[in-house]
């Protein structure tokens, strides 16, 4: 059997598996190109099979979720949704078996994408304002958010790495703290008018800002920037002390900018999960309602 399944279910000895794994490590083979796109091929074939058989199978009076073909696709889709959800359980569980988490994730991604075809063809393209279409719409949202996740996972980590410049997160924060301490002592000679903005800058939480600020990376009310602006134009304090504070403020702003960029990339990397996971559970609830409703009003 030379099908893509032949490798999948082969037992394989541990040493061989380890060796294969080593080759994969060397090639930096991620979940997307796992096993030479095995799961991409499987789900692509599945989609093709569904699209072709949909056209070939003659269902009277027309295709919909209530024909034998529709029920078949629906059962397949519902089962797939539950299995895909199980990734959340699988990833928390360490195993040493053949089903590596990478394999599981690869299957999750590609089979999840094929669910777009399974689910949509299950509807027979009959959509309306009802629980059935709600389940379909939630499924599509979950899949699209997952698709977004794949895209950012494959593009953003490089940007994240460039931005951090070999610093850890805590080192970034520590840099800000250091500038704060220096600012605090450097600002002691300043007049009260000048200390107020510095104090505001010290009082600023680097993690402040809602989800909008996190995702956009824009902080228009940044106290550090405001202090810099005020002190640069101020004439009230001793010029030398003020110069020093302005210099420190500039340094703090740069450190803050790096931290905020870091937060922004991380937010972009994480936000999809806040759609993907809760909507998955909403989907499972809507799916249950959908299935029960079909049998209730059978």
């Amino acid at each position, binding site marked *: 059997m030379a099908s893509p399944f032949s490798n999948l279910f082969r037992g394989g000895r541990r040493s061989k598996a380890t060796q294969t794994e080593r080759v994969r490590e060397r090639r930096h083979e991620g979940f997307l190109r796992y096993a030479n796109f095995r799961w991409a091929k499987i789900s692509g074939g599945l989609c093709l099979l569904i699209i072709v058989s949909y056209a070939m199978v003659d269902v009277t009076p027309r295709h919909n979720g209530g024909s034998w073909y529709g029920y078949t696709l629906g059962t397949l889709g519902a089962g797939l949704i539950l299995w895909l959800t199980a990734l959340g359980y699988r990833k928390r569980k360490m195993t040493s078996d053949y089903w590596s988490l990478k394999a599981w994730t690869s299957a999750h991604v590609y089979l999840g994408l094929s669910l777009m075809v399974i689910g949509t063809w299950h509807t027979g393209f009959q959509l309306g304002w009802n629980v059935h279409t709600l389940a379909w719409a939630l499924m599509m949202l979950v899949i699209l958010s997952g698709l977004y996740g794949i895209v950012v996972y494959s593009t953003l980590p490089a940007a994240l790495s460039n931005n951090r410049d070999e610093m850890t997160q805590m080192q970034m924060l520590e840099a800000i703290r250091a500038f704060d301490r220096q600012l605090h002592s450097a600002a002691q000679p300043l007049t009260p008018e000048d200390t107020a903005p510095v104090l505001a800058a010290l009082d600023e939480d680097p*993690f402040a800002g809602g989800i909008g600020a996190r995702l956009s990376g824009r902080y228009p009310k940044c106290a550090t920037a405001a202090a810099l602006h005020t002190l640069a134009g101020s004439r009230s304090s001793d010029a030398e002390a003020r110069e020093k504070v302005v210099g420190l403020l500039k340094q703090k702003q740069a450190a803050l900018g790096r931290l905020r960029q870091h937060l922004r990339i991380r937010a972009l990397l994480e936000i999809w999960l806040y759609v993907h996971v809760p909507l998955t559970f909403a989907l499972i609830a809507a799916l249950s309602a959908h299935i029960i409703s079909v049998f209730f009003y059978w």
Partner: protein
Amino acid sequence: MSFILRRISTTKTGKQIIRDQALPGDAITLGREGGNIIHIADLAVNPHHATITSTDGRHVRVQAQEGLGFDINGRPETVADIDSAAGAELRFGGHRLTIAREGEAIILLVERIDELSQSSKDVDEAKAFSLQGVMPGKRVGAWTFAILMLLAFLVGPIWAWQSYKNVDERPKGYHADTAWLSGPLSSAHANLKNDCQSCHVEPFVAVTDKACVGCHTGEHKAMSTAHANAPTAMLLAARAPPGGFDKFLAGVGQAFNRPQGRCVECHTEHEGAGPMAATPQKFCADCHEGMNGRLKAAGHPTALADAGDFGTSHPDFRPLVHAAPGAKPVRAALGKPPLDYNGLKFPHDLHLQAAGGVARMAASFRGRYDFGKKLECANCHKPDADGVRIKPVEMERDCAMCHSLAFETVGGVTRTLRHGEPGQVVADLTAYYRSTPPARPLQLGGMERRRPGQYAEGQVYNIYFREVAVRPSRAQDAVRAVFSKGGACYDCHTIFAPTSGNDWRVMAVNQTPRFLQKGWFDHDAHRETECADCHTAASASKQSTDLLVPGLRQCRDCHVGEGGARLVKVETATESPCAMCHEYHSDGGKPWMPPTQRKKKTAAITNQPSRGTYAVSLITGPAQRKLYDVTWRTPALRPTDQGG
């Protein structure tokens, strides 16, 4: 009286070290600048923030210096008098000044309580750097959404069902289970869209026929008469045993409490607004394909032939015919070409010839009737009001244009023999001969004298008066002539000569109004097709007994099975499910068809008639003619003007 400044510092091991320092003087200054007695390195504290004084060594006055105040016990103040024995907590920027009394001394405890800056605060790295801090938790969202979904789309609908469980009709308004509506209902059921329970009566029980017949009484109560009269065992035996995949599907349906053979299996709902879809062929073919053999095997012999698909498997038509003169109409037997004795003599070939007497006569009437160079089918055969069928031929309307029954003109009005009443014909002719003398010869006119001898045998008087004398008895000859070969009646009718006690009789004419009783044929739907395209035998038919109803072969020139199956080459195929011609519930009625599939009457608008059509109709007026509407017929009556 003295002030003691107390400072507490904490070692790395957490041990507290307390250092006391006596402060000189009665007035203690407090501020950020180094010159103050109490120097607080805090940007939130003014360079000269406040002075602390005491007059009696017990009560302490704290006064702010430069506008910026302080908090005492949480309240902002600029000046405060404090009893040091009672103690107080004051707040300057990020520092706390605690005033207390120990013995005779006033203790001033200064501590930094706020962090230097916000960023200096301890953070939970995992939380602060991720979205956890700014987004509600995924788990919270998951539960919230899931519960909302279940409430709105599961609990709500079931509750709606429960509340109207034993109610005949739901009140108007929103019912939560309409969220379960899988698709719009057909227009006939559109008013039920808020009342799911009108059909879905029991939960987890597939819609039963009982729910249908609750409203659909009458012919919908069970089945068509043909099916309702059959014993149940026979009906069951007729159904093809599902094989292979169908058997599997039936088994699955049974397992999920969804039995087969219910009304809704054919009459599918929730398939979109508009009329309900026509029943597909499969629901007839399930039984009727190969049914004959199955019924025979099950001990229910039947005359019904197998019918599985119009294009490939359909028995030949069995039109209603009179198999012998005067016989009762019965459906023709399969096999030989059927004969229909309708009592008329009518050679179609003669009438449809392109040349010859009939064509020439028709041509001579052009401009008076809708005739062309020869007779066409439509000249004699007229559709009925709805265009579905062709009216039985009527002598006065459809034949009399040529086959005149006129015998006399009185003052410009033509008298005709009464068609359909032989007795009246005999009476009219007898009266005619009795009341009218023969034409008087010219020699007998005038006033001049006549010579004798003209009464002699062979002379004009003798001839005339003998004729006058015998004229009434000539009626018998005329009557005989009209009923005999060459006479007006005999040409078209079978005549029975008078026998004892009977006068001349004409065989009854039985024109079958509808030949195909089991199927529905609509002439109007085929109006763009020439008659001869289907009635192919007409132009060669010599006998009126030839049944010219087209057979299956002619239909199959255009009509193929529902799925396009066919046995012969078809140019423009019309896919024809059983329901196109056959009506299940009421035999004899027009099969129901969704309006969208009905043939539109567009020909009248799109196909401009030729100029010739207008030319004729402008002269003759509308095509409809009334009974005995014969005022324009005089020229056609020349031969009879001459009288007997």
